């Protein structure tokens, strides 16, 4: 079986990992309450989606 000839150096390993990034969530302002919310989802703050109340928040 083929094996690696050299241990991957820290530098090479870390260079490879420079492309591992966390993507920022695409947030939008809620049209009902103005809070930040994920797009295509009901607003967790006011429970509205597309001008309709989907649920009443607990607090």
């Amino acid at each position, binding site marked *: 079986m083929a094996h690696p000839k050299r241990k991957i150096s820290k530098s090479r390993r870390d260079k490879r990992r420079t492309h591992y990034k966390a993507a920022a969530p695409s947030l939008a*302002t809620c049209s009902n309450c*103005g809070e930040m919310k994920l797009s295509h989802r009901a607003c967790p*703050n006011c429970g509205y989606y597309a001008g309709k109340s*989907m*649920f009443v*928040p607990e*607090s």
Partner: protein
Amino acid sequence: MRHRVKGRKLGRTASHRSATLRALATSLLKHKKIKTTVAKAKETRSFVEPLITKAKADTLHARRFVSQFIKDKEVLKELFSEIIPKIGDRPGGYTRVVKLGTRVGDAADMAIIELVDYNVIAEKKEKKTTAGKTRKTTKAADKKPVVEDAEVIEEVVEPKKEKTEAKKEKKSTAAKGSAKTKKTESSKSTKSKKDKE
């Protein structure tokens, strides 16, 4: 190739799956609005809607056909006597699936599935939500001095505290050199506040 393969297996055997869908359909017709995962909500949609269409013809045959899947007799009665008249001439599309975001425990995508014509209940609740909102704002105003020492990490977790935090940061933006992302967040929320005012 998965050409023309319809539906989801939901990680269940055929019998378990059919039992799940029947249960979901029954509770949807019973409560008019249920909260479940997105996958199950979408499967329920394509399970219930043909049943409702079938039930539009109020015949013994239709009733017996639907009763194959809806085992709860009370729910069956309600479907034929109350839900069908309310649905009227709607040509399909009796349900609505709205995504909610992820569940805390396993980060599963959650959704609400509801009967479209029963969103009247939500309209009633609207008044309650507005009342809740005013209460929240007052609470936030009261909390302001208390929360001042809270950690910045909490900003992301709780939207209520975020407001107060944003205010606080507005006052002392130069004092604390917080990370770029946090700054942008706070500026956004202040913007939204300005819009409100």
